[in-house]
Each structure stands twice: as structure tokens, then as C-alpha cells.
């Protein structure tokens, strides 16, 4: 059970944060199809940054001392860097769709093509192979163990402690915190209200003195920052901090989570957990021991692993079929704002 919860969180958290990234863009009126590309870019920059930090030796001392606070500081710093990189990359989308009134779907597709191409081009030049790894084991750098917190190796922390404090990535919790804070900002602040109004009725928002262009830039940049973080966290937790120009369709899955969650943070969190569970089952169904009796139930059911892998996508399609009547996208999303058409 502990394993199941931890693994589910590992898959659910990047989905959640990237789906929220989609919400920020779409609520401001820009369809961000480029989430996948921004994740790929963020993952690359994050891994590159960690590698550079290791090469300069800045954190080797912290590593050998077992100073986990310093190591987590490095992780936070990396997350900041990836946020900046993601926001910067997303400027390409906002520039095209706000200033040049381009077709946002095609613009997003362009970024999705650009990110893996650019990333693989650079990785091949830097590492002379198709994957960029960090030296040593990423898990040992960024994973939190109970021994780090002053407990003995054999201490039993109880179910909750073992699940949430031992062998976890604090990055996961940082993301959850970010998710909560940003959701509050979106719903409870003046800025959030203004942002949402630009996705519903930009003409009305403009008539009240809100700069629609600025708001859309803000929404897309926050979106890019979150997707960048999400990409790095994905690479850190599921790919052992390596970057190969691919996040296995997670950005698109996040888009589905966003629509499934009806553009609302709470629903998105629920949807992300559900999808995380499916992803976790698909990835490790042979080693899941649900009730701890040593019987690997799912492995004994004669269902192909390919079916489990297909499940998240299949379910998305089915769920969308049932909920499409109720779902409500921001009204003005995808339409370039033209002051002259007020």
C-alpha cells in the first residue's frame, strides 16, 4: 500500500502541476497545446543545471556530509531555474498568439516539435549520445530518507510516516504546495479574477481597464513556468533525472486531465490522482501488493501489460464522451484578442 501511494503520487504530481499550467493559460484565453514541449525543455534545462552544479563541485561537500538541507536547496534552485526556462520558452507561444494573433493550436504544435529537436540536438553535442544523465544516482541526491530526519534505519514510523517521510522526493510536496497556493491566487485574488475574465470575455475586461494582452502574457508565462517545473519533476522522479527529449506524452495527458477536471483545480487534483493510479498500475503492476499479504494480485490476473498501458488514454476518451455535455471551457480561449472588434 505504501508503495502504491508513493508511486501514484510520483505520477500524479507532475500531471497535476502541468494540468494547472494548462488552466492558467486557458483561463487567460490562450490554448497551450505546447505543454508537452515545455515539459521536455524544462526537464532538459533542469538536468543540465544539476549536471553543471555537480561538475563545479558546489554541492559535493553537502553530498558527502549527508547534508540533506543543502541538497534540497539545490533541488529548489533547480526548480526555480526550470520555471524560468519554461516561462521563457512559453514566450514564443504568447508572442505568436498575442502579438501576431497566430493560430494557437499550430503555434503550440510548433513548440512541441521544436523542444525535442532542440533538446536532442544539444544533448548530442554535449553528451555525444541521445540521453543526458547526471553523474551518480539522482535518487541519492534528492530523495529524503528517514535517516536524514534523525530516525534510525530500523525505526518504524507508522503507516503515515513510512509513506510520506521515507524514500520520498520533497519536490513532490513543493509541487503540491505550489498547486494549492496558485489555485488560491487564481480564485481568491484580484489578479486571478482579472486573469479569468480575459478568458471569458476579454472585450468586457478591456472596457474595465484591464490590459488583456498583459494578462494573457502573464497566464501563459505562469503556465510555462509550471510546465517547466513539471517536466523537471517528471524527469527527476520517473526517469532518474535524465533527459532524452521525451516525456512520454505526459503533457498531452495533462491536457486531458485539465479537460476531465473541467478547468477547476480541485477536480484536476482528483483527476490527476486517478490518472496517476492508472499510470502506476501500468508501470509496476507486477510488484503491487495491495493488502500486504505477499500476493501480487494484479500480476496473477492474465491481462496483458499493454492493456494497462493503454488504459489511461482509453479511459480519457470514454470519460470525455460522457462528460463532454457538461464540460465548460473558458469562452474566449483560442480566439486572438483584437481591440478593434470590441
Amino acid at each position: 500500500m505504501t508503495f502504491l501511494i508513493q508511486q501514484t503520487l510520483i505520477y500524479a504530481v507532475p500531471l497535476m502541476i502541468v494540468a494547472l499550467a494548462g488552466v492558467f493559460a486557458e483561463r487567460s484565453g490562450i490554448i497551450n497545446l505546447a505543454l508537452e514541449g515545455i515539459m521536455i525543455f524544462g526537464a532538459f534545462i533542469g538536468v543540465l543545471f544539476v549536471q553543471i552544479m555537480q561538475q563545479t563541485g558546489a554541492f559535493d561537500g553537502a553530498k558527502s556530509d549527508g547534508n540533506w538541507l543543502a541538497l534540497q536547496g539545490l533541488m529548489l534552485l533547480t526548480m526555480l531555474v526550470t520555471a524560468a526556462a519554461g516561462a521563457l520558452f512559453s514566450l514564443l507561444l504568447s508572442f505568436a498568439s498575442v502579438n501576431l494573433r497566430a493560430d494557437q493550436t499550430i503555434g503550440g504544435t510548433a513548440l512541441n516539435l521544436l523542444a525535442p529537436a532542440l533538446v536532442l540536438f544539444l544533448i548530442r553535442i554535449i553528451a555525444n549520445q541521445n540521453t543526458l544523465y547526471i553523474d551518480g544516482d539522482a535518487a541519492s541526491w534528492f530523495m529524503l530518507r528517514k535517516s536524514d530526519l534523525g530516525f534510525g534505519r530500523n525505526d518504524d514510523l507508522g503507516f503515515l510516516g513510512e509513506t510520506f517521510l521515507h524514500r520520498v522526493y520533497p519536490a513532490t510536496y513543493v509541487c503540491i504546495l505550489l498547486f494549492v497556493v496558485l489555485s488560491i491566487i487564481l480564485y481568491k485574488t484580484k489578479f486571478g479574477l482579472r486573469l479569468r475574465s480575459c478568458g471569458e470575455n476579454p472585450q468586457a475586461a478591456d472596457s474595465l481597464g484591464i490590459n488583456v494582452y498583459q494578462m494573457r502574457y502573464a497566464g501563459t508565462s505562469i503556465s510555462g513556468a509550471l510546465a517547466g517545473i513539471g517536466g523537471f519533476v517528471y524527469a527527476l522522479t520517473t526517469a532518474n533525472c535524465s533527459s532524452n527529449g521525451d516525456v512520454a506524452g505526459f503533457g498531452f495527458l495533462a491536457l486531458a486531465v485539465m479537460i476531465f477536471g473541467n478547468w477547476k483545480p480541485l477536480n484536476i487534483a482528483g483527476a490527476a490522482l486517478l490518472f496517476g493510479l492508472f499510470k502506476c498500475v501500468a508501470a509496476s503492476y507486477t510488484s503491487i501488493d495491495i493488502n500486504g499479504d505477499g500476493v501480487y494480485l494484479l500480476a496473477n490476473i492474465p491481462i496483458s501489460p499493454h492493456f494497462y498501458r493503454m488504459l489511461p488514454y482509453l479511459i480519457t476518451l470514454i470519460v470525455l464522451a460522457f462528460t463532454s455535455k457538461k464540460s465548460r471551457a473558458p469562452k474566449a480561449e483560442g480566439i486572438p484578442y483584437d481591440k478593434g472588434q470590441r
Partner: protein
Amino acid sequence: MKEKWSHLMKKDGAKTVAASVISILIGLLVGCIIVIITGLTSGNMDGASVWDGVRLVLGGILSTGRDASGSLTFGFNPTNVGNMLFRATPLILTGLSVAVAFKTGLFNIGAPGQYLIGTAATLITALSIPTSAVPSPIVWLLAFLAGVLAGALWGAIPGLVKALLNINEVLACIMTNWIAANLVTWIFDNSVWRNLEEYGKTNYIYKTSHNGVETARAGLEALFPGSQVNWGFGIAVVIAILVYVFMTKTTMGYELMACGSNRHAARYAGVSDRRNIVLSMAIAGALSGAAAALYYLSGNTEFYWQTYQSLPATGFNGIPVALLAASNPIGVIFTGCFMSMLNIVGQQLTSLTAFNEYITDVIIATIVYLSAFSLVIKLWLSGRKKHKAQPPAVPAASAADGKTEKGGEDA
């Protein structure tokens, strides 16, 4: 002369071509700039290798390797040209697939999935029917039709959910892509079609030539020695012309285009928009399936079946091919060749310099990015020649040729 030129530039078609050419030039420029920057900043490359990189980006198709002194040589290279035509074959067809959907106002990002399903159907048919009992040309034809049909059925799924349930086709396509990727892996896992004979070939399916099925090359191997080219290219060109005739000269094609320009107006005029959405996606799927069929029936290509983690680039590259051609089926023939030329350029870069083939993907992405606002480029082209008193009157909301349905209405 000057007047003639400005008269020509007033035509919409000419502006579209000019916009595409500008996009290509900027794309190539960006590629060169990246080569120059990475070359000069990385320690182990000098000015000469940067110059080599730039020359290959611009003229790699004419590269004939390096001479004895180690400097690049250029000239007509029949192998490169033949391979270019061979790789253009599937690109033209996936480009047509995306273009037909665009004309109906749909964004077919599902070409990779349709391509995969087409691949599976083609390979299974081509390898399962014994050529000892059935003549191989008939097996070829059956395999081709199987690929086309499977692609059409797979393409119809997003069309159906869009028409009946109003689910955004982009999202439905993305989901069916990944379902296809897993499904194809599932089908070939533990199957009899896996190539277990050749040593070191893990996770590959037999070539269709294993069963004696391959596309005719009749004379082309003499023309382009050492290349993979076959008459599949001719078939792709014929299909492109047929699609052009279908879209512009038949009632059915006209109805499809009517739905694309204004779905509500078309419905008002008595055209069933739902039926046309499904039809358009099915045709798009059939074209992607045909792309896969022609590529794998060549007999000298192999399919890597463990594909559940990645989607075929040929499917996605149909998007730039269609965009660059402004969804014109005849234009797609040329832009398909251009894309495959970039592919050859990438190959040359990898084998001859320290740079690698991904730079050509960067160029393609830049071109797609520019085509997202090709309307702006077109306006700028016409604005230059006109008086300032005539502001461009095209409403921005109608956007480029490849305008997709407004996202807010569906999903």
C-alpha cells in the same frame, strides 16, 4: 516588368507561395544560426567545421562526401536524390492526410496513430498470405488496401466522437495516437511476424520482402543507384492529384470544403456537417494508412514494433508538409519533397560533421511556427504594395488556411 510583378503579387496563390518561401528561408536561417552558435561556443569545433555545417544545412542534398584532402565536395548525388524521393513518399501522403482534414476545418494530429495502425494492417497482410499460393502483386495490393482501410477506420474514431459527442478532435486524436501505439505493440508482442532469424534484430518485424512482397522499382534503381527509391513515389503523386480533383471538382469534395469554411453556413445550406466530419477524418486516416503501406511495402524497410513509448515522426511531419503547402494537394507533393530533402540533409550532417540530424527538426519546427502566423506574413506582403489608405480587411479571427475549430465550443 515591375507592373507585371505587382500584378502577380496581388493573386492570393502567389502570396501563399511567397509566404511559404519566406517561412522556409527563415527556417533555414535559424538552422544556420544555431549551427554557428553551437559551433563557436563548443570547444572542439573550429570555424572550418562551422562553415561545413552551414554549407550542408543549405545544400546537403548535393553533398557527395569528402575528398581526399578532407574538404566537402558537392555535385549531383543520385543516391541522395533517390532516397529523398523514397522518403518523400510517406510524407506526401501524411501531408495530404493533414491537408484534407484542414480543408474541413479539422486539425488531424492523429496521423501518427493512423500511420501505426496502417503499418500493422499492411505488415500482417503482406506477411500472412503465402506468396506460394497467391501471386505477390495481388498480395501487395491486398496489403496496401488493408493499410488504407485500417487507417480509415482508425481516423474515423476521432471524427465520430467529434461529430456525435462534440469532443475536441485534437484531444481525441492524441488519445487515439497513444492507444494505437500500445495496441500495435500488443499485437506484435509474441507474434509470428517478429524477425527472429537475423542475429541482432531484436524487436523488429520481418521486411515484407521476407514473403517476396515489394513495390516495383522498374528502372528506378538504374536511375538512382544505391538508393531505396521505388514506384511508391509515383503512386503517392497520383494519389495527390486524385485528392486535388476530388476536393475541387466533385460535389462531395465541395461539401467537405464548405464545412471547413463555415460549418454553420454549410448546415444551413443542407450539408450534413456531422457526416462530413466523419468522412473527412476517415479520408485523412486512409491517406495516413496509405503512407504507412507504401513505406513498409517497399521491402527494404523494417518496423520496430516496441513502439508504445514513441510515435512515428512521419505522422507528425505531415503537419508541416500540409501547412507549408497551405493545404493544397498539389503543393503537398513539393513540400513533401522539401521535408524529405531536409531529412537527407540531416543524415549528411550526422555522417560528415560533428553536428547531428536534429538540427533539421529545429528547422521544421521553425517553419511550422512561422506558418502559424502565415496570415500576418501574407498581409505584410500585400501591405507593402498597397496604399496606406487601404488597410488589410481580413478579420483576424478567420486566421490562417489551417484554421481549426474554435476550441471553446467543443471538448
